[in-house]
């Protein structure tokens, strides 16, 4: 006969009374629970650790891009240099900058020294001087003190990067500038107010942010109404049949298609067939809309499915027609879920670059897009372009742009969570 183990009440309180077998079973159960909990905690710690390292690395790299080192120059707008010739004009500006920098050391400069001095300030200074003089010609013959960004090479040197390109002479000058307090570090607003540029210290994300906003607005304006209406039709009106199942399977497959495939489709349809302009935010939006459709339809259908049957029956029992049931009761109850799904699809679309590269959004675009048809770039593509550049300033810029993109994503996800929490307790 098998000896049955039945835990009597007394053994619960006095473990001494437990049989060896009972003790063994208890220990085994506790060990299993402990192992599972430990494993779960370890995975969470690992995930958080990786996230922390990722964010930390990007922040460390990107934060310098939010700051700029400026140098004080005292420019004498020498009337001799007031030239009309476009090429010679910039040479004259260089001369003016070199002279203003050299005042502290010597009056006579070799042309080598001049070049070495010019290389310490950002090339954007030439444009600044050009803008000042054409706006205000009365400057000629006067002296102005200006704070202008330093060049990428000097910036690297100041940050202590060893493989700097400065000569010993340049380094001496820099020490001299430092002793005169002619160098300062300030917040770089131009990162948010400028568009792309050849000079890393002048490049900003404004154009890319506008491009992203235009593109997402187009994508949303197309994908939201069509996606929602498709979901409502499929879920509420379409008769159950084998082709409804086929559509369902196709939608699920479509949601898993790599985004670059949508880019290929957009390239052949929108650009080659319809002849829409390359690199336009309109085409970018259409491409992202294609990608968002399946995600939105699936999310909306889930939201509609989650509406309790009792609510539909209540309305039907009162004599509401099918359309009335859907539009008066089911859809309003499903809207929070639909919006959450929409925000999650936007969050996915905002980080997409591959399909947009295929429709030509890789061009260098130094301006804010004027219209939906004008060439534009978006944040992820801008990041991709900057990462490819050799200057260290662009690497910093790309990390800073990643931080901005992540911030957008966090905000979107936060809104999605808020909407879900705020509206979910309706029944």
């Amino acid at each position, binding site marked *: 006969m098998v000896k049955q183990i039945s835990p009597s009440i007394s053994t619960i309180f006095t473990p001494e009374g437990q049989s060896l077998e009972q003790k063994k079973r208890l220990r085994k159960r506790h060990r299993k629970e402990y192992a599972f909990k430990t494993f779960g905690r370890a995975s969470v710690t690992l995930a958080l650790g990786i996230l922390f390292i990722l964010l930390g690395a990007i922040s460390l790299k990107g934060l310098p891009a939010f700051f700029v080192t400026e140098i004080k120059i005292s420019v004498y707008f020498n009337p001799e240099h007031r030239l009309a010739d476009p090429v010679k004009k910039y040479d004259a500006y260089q001369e003016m900058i070199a002279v203003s920098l050299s005042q502290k050391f010597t009056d006579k400069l070799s042309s080598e020294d001049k070049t070495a001095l010019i290389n310490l300030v950002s090339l954007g200074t030439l444009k600044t001087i050009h803008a000042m003089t054409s706006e205000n010609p009365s400057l000629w013959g006067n002296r102005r003190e200006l704070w202008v960004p330093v060049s990428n090479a000097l910036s690297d040197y100041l940050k202590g990067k060893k493989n700097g390109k400065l000569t010993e002479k340049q380094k001496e000058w820099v020490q001299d500038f430092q002793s005169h307090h002619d160098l300062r570090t300030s917040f770089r607003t131009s990162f948010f107010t400028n568009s792309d540029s050849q000079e890393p210290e002048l490049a900003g994300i404004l154009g890319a942010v506008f491009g992203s906003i235009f593109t997402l607005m187009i994508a949303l304006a197309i994908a939201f109404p069509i996606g929602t209406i498709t979901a409502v039709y499929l879920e509420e009106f379409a008769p159950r049949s084998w082709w409804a199942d086929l559509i369902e399977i196709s939608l699920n497959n479509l949601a898993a298609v790599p985004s670059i495939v949508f880019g290929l489709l957009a390239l052949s349809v929108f650009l080659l067939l319809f002849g829409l302009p390359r690199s336009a935010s309109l085409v970018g939006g259409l491409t992202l809309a294609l990608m968002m459709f399946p995600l939105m339809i699936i999310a909306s259908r889930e939201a509609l499915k989650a509406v309790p049957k*009792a609510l539909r029956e209540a*309305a*039907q029992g009162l004599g*509401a027609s099918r359309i009335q049931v859907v539009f008066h009761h089911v859809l309003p109850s499903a809207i929070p879920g639909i919006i959450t799904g929409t925000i999650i699809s936007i969050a996915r679309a905002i980080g997409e670059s591959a399909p947009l590269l295929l429709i030509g959004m890789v061009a260098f675009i130094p301006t804010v897009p004027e219209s939906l048809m004008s060439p534009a770039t978006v944040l992820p593509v801008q990041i991709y372009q900057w990462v490819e550049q050799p200057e260290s300033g662009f690497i910093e810029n790309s990390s800073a742009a990643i931080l901005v993109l992540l911030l957008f994503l966090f905000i979107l996800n936060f809104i999605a969570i808020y909407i879900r929490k705020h509206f979910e307790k309706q029944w």
Partner: protein
Amino acid sequence: MLTNTPKLSVRKLSLFYGRQQALFNINMDIRKNEVMALIGPSGCGKSSFLRCLNRMNDTFDTVQVVGNVLLDGKDIYDKSVDVVQLRACVGMVFQRANPFPKSIYDNVAYGPRIHGIAKSSADLDAIVQSSLERAGLLREVHDRLHQLGTSLSGGQQQRLCIARAIAVNPEVILMDEPCSALDPIATARVEELIDELRERFTIVMVTHNLQQAARVSQRIAFFHSGELVEAGETGDVFTNPQDKRTQDYLTGRY
């Protein structure tokens, strides 16, 4: 009063879920202004039968109904009948109270609004007031008509659902175990209410509670395995059941 003309008469009604038959050749008359209670063991088809009376079964693709249901002598399964109009005449109250996630006022006003019953907002106010009054709920909620209907207690929610159903002024009200989710006090209130409503409406009600059937119904119908075994005056069926199965059920041998 023409108590002898049936309000509803069901003729040779059969119902199929796909290939499985759930109701077999049901014939039944329901008189005006009476409470007809449908009883029987779980899964016997009484709820399915109830849902045939306002074509709620139409909402399922797989359900097929054969036979006739005559409302005042006209077949509700006729092609010319609009289901929406039918359901305005034959209202329904469900097992679990299912108010809309809207205000108490909007819950009651919804039916009149979609059927265009109220001429003005004053009319609508009057309909909402009188429906809540007749459902015995007005005194409890008159000062909070704009609170969510879902914020009421279970019994109040069920009476709100009844108010919502009678606001459309139907002729027949179908009730599918309206008290099964309520406590005894709330149940007693709903039972009283059903008795009052009988003056104006014809009521068909599914119940598992035999005492309840005895208390509120005038006539009773016993279902078993998709068949209508026996129907008659409540007192007669309880005291002198004709069929062995009815007798077993009433004496608790199921």
